[in-house]
């Protein structure tokens, strides 16, 4: 890695946390006012715990490309399945430039992945439960998939072992961060259950709109800055992209988000008569998530197409999950992160000119659905027996702020009517 590449990647990695800040604002704004302080504190606490646990254990299991690891020998091939680096970031200061930057990238990635389920559990997910989820993801699940994808694991070696394109491509973390986080969100929502009064015994589900559209929409702008840095840094680190290719990656990221927002705007305008602010924000994020999978490997026209598809599917899928499948996901994370992430990695294969790339991407998607979702569900269900994810009914009625923190985010606000009395 040249000095210019190192300096630029480090600068990009120092900007990338803005994506996490944007996500935190969006998660908070999409929840209710009586849980706002708990939601934002939770975002901060989960990011902190995820980073510490990753430094202790996760970074060792995540490994580095070319570093030590455990592999299975099956079918005449070596299948690298987990790393075996030093614990507590031993030797980090003396590691190669690329390994140091990759570790920083993984720090932000694990924090982002752990935040995604927190948004889905808004208004009923206890801080202790959120932190326990962060520990599981940072210590084991994220490092496992990160090693497979970024550190020379079996997904990265699909090209060498089976001639599938250039191996599984995930330059911006669409799979290792967003799909993993989105599937974890689905597991959390299943285990914690819906908010009180969300699905009454009679009639349709109750609308529980986010309390602050300004936070949500401003969070979209903040997230864009972080995402630009994130995708560019990922392209340098995982694709060894030349610096001259980074403007295309940045333009693709912007175009995918803009196309997705436009599509969601049009769909909600058509469906409801007026554009929906929170769904448009979800569409914008879905475009960014899709860009994480494909922005570094497609042309601008294809990035627009990827964004358009993400933007059209997002509002329809949010509606489907809530109305048809009784899934209460206040932040829309399952759609925005899991579905759009899967679309992003699929698009990277679909638009690739390399033979076998699409199959490599499908194998990566199969690993996410077939391994990550069952594993996180079982681990979370086990943890839930010792650390209850869901707050008790009185706490939920009171609001997470008063119940968990003893004080509200907006002490001068008039308390809203409780939907659970309907």
């Amino acid at each position, binding site marked *: 890695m040249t000095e210019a590449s190192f300096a630029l990647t480090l600068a990009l990695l120092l900007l990338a946390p803005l994506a996490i800040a944007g996500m935190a604002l969006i998660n908070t704004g999409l929840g209710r006012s009586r849980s706002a302080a708990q939601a934002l504190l939770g975002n901060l606490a989960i990011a902190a715990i995820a980073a510490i646990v990753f430094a202790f254990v996760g970074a060792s299991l995540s490994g580095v490309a070319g570093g030590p690891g455990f592999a299975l020998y099956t079918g005449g091939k070596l299948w690298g399945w987990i790393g075996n680096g030093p614990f507590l970031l031993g030797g980090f200061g003396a590691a190669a430039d690329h390994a140091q930057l990759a570790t920083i990238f993984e720090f932000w990635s694990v924090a982002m992945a752990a935040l995604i389920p927190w948004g889905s559990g808004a208004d009923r997910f206890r801080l202790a439960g959120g932190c326990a989820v962060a520990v599981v993801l940072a210590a084991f699940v994220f490092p496992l998939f990160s090693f497979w994808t970024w550190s020379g694991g079996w997904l990265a070696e699909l090209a060498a072992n*089976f001639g599938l394109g250039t191996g599984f491509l995930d330059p911006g973390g669409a799979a290792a961060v967003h799909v993993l986080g989105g599937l974890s969100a689905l597991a959390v929502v299943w285990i914690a259950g*819906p908010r009180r*009064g969300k699905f009454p015994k009679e009639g349709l589900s109750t609308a529980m709109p986010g309390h602050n559209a300004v936070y949500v929409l401003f969070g979209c702008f903040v997230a864009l800055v972080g995402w630009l840095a994130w995708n560019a840094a990922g392209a340098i680190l995982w694709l060894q992209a030349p610096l001259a290719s980074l403007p295309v990656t940045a333009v693709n990221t912007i175009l995918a988000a803009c196309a997705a927002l436009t599509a969601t705007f049009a769909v909600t305008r058509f469906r409801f008569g007026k554009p929906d602010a929170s769904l448009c924000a979800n569409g914008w994020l879905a475009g960014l998530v899709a860009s994480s999978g494909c922005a570094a490997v497609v042309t601008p026209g294809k990035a627009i197409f990827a964004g358009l598809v993400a933007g059209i599917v997002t509002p329809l899928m949010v509606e489907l999950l809530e109305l048809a499948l009784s899934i209460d996901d206040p932040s829309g994370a399952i759609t925005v992160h899991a579905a759009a992430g899967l679309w992003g990695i699929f698009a990277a294969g679909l638009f690739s000119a390399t033979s076998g790339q699409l199959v490599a991407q499908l194998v990566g998607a*199969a690993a996410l659905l*077939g391994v990550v979702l069952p594993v996180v569900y079982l681990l979370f269900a086990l943890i839930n027996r010792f650390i209850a994810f869901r707050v008790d009914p009185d706490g939920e009625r009171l609001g997470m702020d008063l119940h968990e923190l003893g004080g509200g985010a907006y002490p001068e606000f008039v308390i809203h009517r409780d939907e659970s009395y309907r």
Partner: protein
Amino acid sequence: MKYAGLLVMPAGFFLTVAALVLFPAPGPRAAFVVCGLAVEAMGLAVAVRGHMHRRGEERP
């Protein structure tokens, strides 16, 4: 039912991995990878269905 669905999903994954080892030709390999994904999708549908039943019984 939800656990049955979650057990079917790894079965789809192993089908995908088996396709890589057993089928060197691109066509059959791609077909079996897609079949593995289809099995996973079925498992997911069963898991979703299982949770819907539960919600119907225990709506808070």
